[in-house]
């Protein structure tokens, strides 16, 4: 199964890179999201995955009796997901503002010749 996930990570990174190399701003954002997903799965995978053993201590227990999934990567991913949501949502709004200003989402058009008065 790990190999399948490894493959998946590769696909997500590749797709992310491909998308951020495109000219469309929307694709750039989607690429960033995919890269984020790829990273999350990578962290997840590298912290020893376990099926069906969530790191939750049983109802009447004080400590784990059984093996359990490593909780640390989960916590990290959780934080990372939320943070990248903050960034992504800001970026999405930025995209909208840029679109409103220059009326295109072509990244190649982001080169207004230096009109200093506009700074």
């Amino acid at each position, binding site marked *: 199964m790990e190999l399948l996930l490894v493959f998946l990570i590769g696909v997500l990174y590749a797709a992310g890179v491909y998308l*951020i190399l495109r000219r469309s*701003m929307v694709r*750039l954002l989607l690429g*960033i999201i995919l*890269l*984020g997903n790829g*990273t999350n799965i*990578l*962290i997840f995978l*590298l*912290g020893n995955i376990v099926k069906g053993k969530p790191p939750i201590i049983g109802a009447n227990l004080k400590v784990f009796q059984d093996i359990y999934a490593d909780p*640390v*990567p989960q916590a*990290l991913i959780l*934080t*990372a997901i939320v*943070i*990248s949501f*903050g*960034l992504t949502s*800001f*970026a999405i709004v*930025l*995209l909208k*503002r*840029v679109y409103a*200003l*220059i009326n295109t989402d072509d*990244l190649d058009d*982001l*080169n*207004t010749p*230096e*009109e*200093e008065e*506009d*700074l």
Partner: protein
Amino acid sequence: MIDNQIIATVVVHLFTAIIQLAFWSKTITQRILSIAGCIIGFIFSIILFTNVFNGSILTMNAANWEAPFGIVFVADLLSSTFVLLTSIAALAVSIFSAVGIGKARMHYGYFPMFHFLIMGLNGAFLTGDIFNLYVWFEVIIIASFVLLTLGGRKAQLEGAVKYMALNILASTFFLTGIGIIYGITGTLNMADLSLKIPLVQDQNIVNLTAIFFMIGFGIKSAVFPLYFWLPSSYHTPPSAVAAIFGGLLTKAGLYALFRVFTLIFIPNEFIKTVLVGLAIMTILTGVFGAIIRNNMRHLFSYLIVCHIGFIVGGLGLYTKVAFMGAIFYLIHDIMVKTNLFLISGLIRKLRGTMNMSKLGGLYAEYPKISLLIAVVLFSLVGIPPLSGFWPKIYLFEASFAGKSYLFLASLIIASFITLYVIAKLWAEVFWKEASTDEIVADSFQPLSRFKKTLLILPIGILACTSLFIGLYAEFIIQVANRISNEMLDPSPYIKAVLGK
């Protein structure tokens, strides 16, 4: 030694920002709060610095969980020096902002964002946990996005898109690196990592991980060929914002590079060579860019890139002398680069433009301001005995010792081109007669005396700091010496954090 005061500088800015949020549209209150917050932060950072300088490394366990289980804050001399420099720069920029930033921007959260940014920087310098460092970097990034876009002008937004994309990419590399490093060591505490990384059997993986960190932090430090966001964006925001960016953002990346490559990954020959090679190319890239730019802020942006090469090269040579040169240069650079952008803001106030060919006549009209600026410019060039001169002695010495003559050559070329462009700038902006066909939009003259002072004072503060660094080089050298020792031998750091 455990000392909970060490995050005072973080808390001060956090609270300043939150209180300012309560005074959302009261710009005068915000200005006063901001300056007050920066002064308090400055005092705390001095206390922190003196405590560390006179004592030993201080630590603080967040939520009282012992390292490596909880998040630990560590103030060694490297961290506390950065915090101190940040506080000085923040104070100067805060004062400058009081007049230099328009009311509209203040109405939309300029000051809270500014303090969040400073908080993020201080947090990044003080944390002893690699994932926590990531969180601080994200705080820095999001705050800088907001500051960069605040105002919503076309050039700003265009620059911001590039800034955003490249910085998020950097974070991706950084986070990937963190994932791998956790996978191979099972820890996130930097001191613990320092102990566990050498135990990893497959050092090849360690080197691969190091590359992720190098690229992630390399983008943030604007190293060749990862620097593109810097000249794309630094000329767009208001000068006060550009000042804090120019002085501190790239330096946070450099801090991380130094921290990671002296504490966690001890670089092998390959990484060292790559670092020196990148440094040479960074220097040349900055040189090439600086020589063709005619707008002051473009010029300064490329000079930032150029001089980052000096510091990265010092890291890559990886000897004590080289470290001392790099650290001294960093200390000098933060003060000067912050000031340069403030100066460009002041000149814009004086003349309404930053285009060198349109400027002129400042020396005749404002001789004293001009001389003040001259001190900063000469510090930048490294005219002895000003601050930029001393680190060069160490860097030259280190490159002779390391036989990296290419690096030496690029240092000489860069020093020369810096001298040349600054001489050109002086001739164009200060000496040349003011052009008569352009209407001079002097928005400085009509200001009240108090406001004029608020614009010039911060430049003076930073210039005096630069002068101090230059004339009392002995003290800075001692600091650099101690920091280099810390970097070459991390065992006191580890002992302070883990107690072993």
